[in-house]
């Protein structure tokens, strides 16, 4: 058993089960979680920490205890890529395979990992010690290449560092001793700081200021009637920071006025958009702002229970965040009669995700909180009306909740005066790539792309991937004057800079590959259409596209945009379409190449004859062997 002691829930810490390895752990987990299906992910995590994978006998016991079938438990377990149904090594290693990692030595680090562990990517080494897997962005874009080892993380990897880390684990050290040699307790911020950097580069008016007295903000807020609180949020003009930009005050009003006895508040800390990491930094530096925002939302809509959904890749934050919740409870800011308001009871539990980008979509996130696959729901109804377990639920991003706390501290007018007419306030940017100041920058909405690039010291910027793969690849020359705002160039926080040495078609292809792997698979256009788009992007990037391929791009993209069930499929074509539209020179070059060859361009001559050589060699070898015997 590795890793720190097990947190069963946000409110209690129990020791790991001590039963002998031959007996099942599942019955005890079921008892701890009250045979509650919505805690299935917690139970699966516990089983995996215990066994290194999810043994079928344990899953069958869980199914029995939850009154369902083994197949039903497996459909949840198999959805999340951090869960393993087969033995996956005593230590599970996940190397982030991202565009940024590939710009910073990914290939060398992967080679070193395969050499040092003896495992090939996707497999387990012969001794069963290391399982080596690939994973999309783990929120460390400003310190790639980065590697998860069980629930720890190692950033800024080099082949030498890999040799050192793996060598010490091989020699018997626990990964936590290697990552945290000073043995800092896992609930302290110093522990998180020992693992990863939180690079705050530009302090703005909203975040990373001297400490906010959240107790005072909460006490003042709960002295108001809830509708007054909602009104103040509405007056601020705050729009959701997760990307969709929905009016926060309106969402809260819809939830508060939906007829129901029970309501929930959920904080979306499933920061999965490749290139973004500002929520991780916010949760590390100012977690109290986000948690207080949840408390304020609970008061505003009448909720008693909250869930902080933390992506599985951020497992190393969970003890720290659980401790922050504990501190809030000690101050009377969570629990009963919060802020001195009799009858205002609210508490928060942490739900750890398990590796799935689409769970950042609010309805998929709620499915995941219920212990199911992260399949996005049909909308309407929206979560504010029908959410967690069918109850009206507020789902807001970490940054949104944190802004709410600051809005109620400084007043809605203070906030609405900043930014532009339709985009009040500021925006945290996760800046990475070809610039000298990667990290988190706070800028006012309305700041131009050029001005951001000056701020982050990127004089050679050629393109910016704004909002990650789901956003667009923007030409600095053509569109550097555009302003970050909902009315012009929307931005969910990801801001990745490329200079002219980068192959943007390769970037687009990597992003499409990401969407193929992260599609939940239940709607046709996204499940089957993204692989088709990836094929197009591959042929275009390799100069093998023909005229029909180029003609298909817009038609197939329109199909996915129009008919997909959720935002993933609606936006997944954007890496390809925006790159081709903002960089017409790349599109022209692709079109020109497609006319050059005598063969149909899509015909891959190398691939077609690749099997001939080895087959001929085998034939010759077989003949010689026959002649020799």
């Amino acid at each position: 058993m590795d890793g720190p002691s097990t947190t069963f829930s946000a409110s209690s810490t129990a020791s790991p089960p001590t039963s002998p390895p031959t007996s099942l752990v599942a019955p005890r987990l079921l008892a701890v979680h009250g045979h509650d299906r919505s805690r299935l992910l917690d139970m699966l995590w516990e089983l995996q920490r215990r066994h290194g994978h999810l043994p079928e006998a344990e899953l069958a016991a869980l199914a029995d205890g939850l009154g369902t079938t083994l197949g039903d438990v497996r459909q949840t377990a198999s959805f999340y890529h951090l869960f393993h149904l087969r033995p996956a090594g005593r230590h599970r290693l996940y190397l982030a395979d991202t565009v940024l990692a590939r710009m910073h030595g990914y290939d060398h680090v992967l080679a070193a990992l395969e050499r040092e562990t003896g495992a090939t990517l996707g497999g387990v080494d012969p001794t069963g010690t290391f399982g080596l897997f690939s994973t999309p962005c783990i929120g460390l874009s400003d310190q790639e290449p980065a590697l998860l080892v069980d629930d720890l993380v190692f950033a800024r990897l080099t082949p030498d560092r890999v040799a050192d880390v793996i060598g010490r684990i091989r020699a018997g050290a626990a990964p936590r001793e290697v990552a945290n040699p000073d043995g800092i307790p896992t609930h302290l911020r110093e522990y998180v700081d020992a693992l990863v950097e939180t690079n705050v580069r530009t302090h703005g008016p909203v975040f990373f200021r001297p400490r906010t007295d959240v107790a005072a903000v909460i006490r003042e807020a709960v002295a108001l009637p809830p509708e007054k609180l909602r009104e103040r949020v509405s007056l601020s003009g705050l729009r959701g920071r997760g990307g969709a930009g929905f009016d926060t005050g309106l969402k809260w009003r819809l939830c508060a006025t939906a007829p129901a006895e029970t309501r929930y508040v959920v904080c979306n800390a499933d920061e999965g958009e490749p290139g973004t990491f500002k929520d991780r930094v916010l949760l590390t530096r100012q977690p109290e702002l986000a948690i207080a925002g949840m408390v304020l939302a609970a008061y505003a809509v009448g909720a008693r229970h909250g869930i902080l959904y933390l992506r599985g890749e951020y497992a190393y934050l969970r003890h720290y965040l659980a401790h922050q919740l504990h501190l809030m409870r000690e101050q009377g800011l969570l629990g009963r009669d919060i802020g001195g308001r009799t009858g205002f009871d609210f508490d928060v539990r942490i739900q750890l995700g398990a590796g799935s980008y689409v769970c950042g979509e609010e309805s998929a996130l709620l499915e995941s909180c219920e212990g199911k696959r992260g399949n996005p729901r049909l909308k309407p109804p929206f979560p504010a009306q029908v959410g967690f377990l069918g109850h009206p639920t507020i789902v807001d991003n970490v940054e949104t909740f944190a802004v709410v706390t600051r809005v109620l501290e400084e007043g809605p007018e203070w906030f609405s005066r900043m930014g532009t007419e339709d985009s009040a306030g500021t925006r945290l940017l996760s800046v990475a790539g070809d610039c000298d100041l990667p990290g988190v920058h706070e800028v006012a909405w309305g700041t131009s792309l050029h001005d951001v690039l000056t701020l982050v010291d990127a004089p050679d910027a050629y393109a910016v991937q704004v909002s990650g793969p789901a956003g667009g690849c923007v030409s600095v020359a053509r569109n550097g004057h555009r302003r970050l705002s909902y009315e012009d160039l929307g931005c969910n926080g990801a801001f990745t800079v490329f200079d002219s040495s980068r192959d943007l078609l390769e970037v687009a292809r990597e992003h499409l590959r990401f969407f193929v792997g992260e599609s939940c698979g239940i709607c046709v256009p996204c499940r089957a259409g993204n692989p088709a788009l990836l094929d197009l992007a591959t042929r275009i990037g390799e100069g093998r596209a023909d005229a029909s391929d180029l003609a298909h791009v817009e038609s197939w993209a329109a199909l996915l945009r129009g008919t997909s069930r959720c935002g993933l499929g609606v936006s997944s074509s954007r890496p390809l379409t925006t790159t081709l539209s903002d960089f017409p020179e790349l599109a022209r070059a692709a079109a020109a190449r497609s006319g050059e060859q005598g063969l149909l361009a899509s015909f891959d001559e190398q691939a077609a004859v690749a099997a001939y050589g080895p087959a001929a060699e085998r034939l010759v070898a077989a003949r010689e062997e026959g002649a020799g015997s």
Partner: protein
Amino acid sequence: MSITVTVDGVPVTVEEGATVADAATAAGAYVPTLCFHEDHPALGTCRVCAARLDGRVVAACSAEVHDGAEVEVAADDLATMRRQVVGLLFAEGNHVCPSCEKSGRCDLQAVAAETGMLTSEFPYRYPGRETDPGDARIWLARDRCILCQRCVDLVRDDEGRPVFTLTGRGPDTRVELDHATAAGLSDEQVAAAVDLCPVGAILRKGVGYDEPIGARRFDVASVRERALRGERR
């Protein structure tokens, strides 16, 4: 309460709560569906029922109309999208109609004919898909599965437990049959599960060719005729 909407410019009256598909049917405009079953809530997985509601492309099976709504069904771009979705299904699976027991009563085959999907514009992938023949009564032929989720969401045993489930995600998503639970189903429940499958993925062993060709569901009435009569099952 009745409300009035227009479908391709034609005004029709429908009940409040009606979907875009209901409104289209009321106007005599055919919208194809695959995952939708009239006895159950919309699943919204196949996306073949693309129509336009007030200028936005929606899934007609689940999007509700409001008084004064403008619905479009016939526009060329919508017809293209519907045909493309069917084409994606044919390209991602292994659909060989001439050798399929379900031919003539297969929704996918019938909808392909109605939408003009004769050859997919998407590259055929010919995936290797494992068949599950292990159950005593049910043959799960994944080659033909379109992952509509009807079986996953709607088939339950007497204790309310799911019999069919999904594993994996993205292009690797597949339907699983829980043999232990399936063994507890009655013959009627098995027959209902077979009937629920819009394609030939869930078949009853031993009775593959029970219904003669020429007398099958879509031999008797086309999928268009049935849909316009309000029969979507």
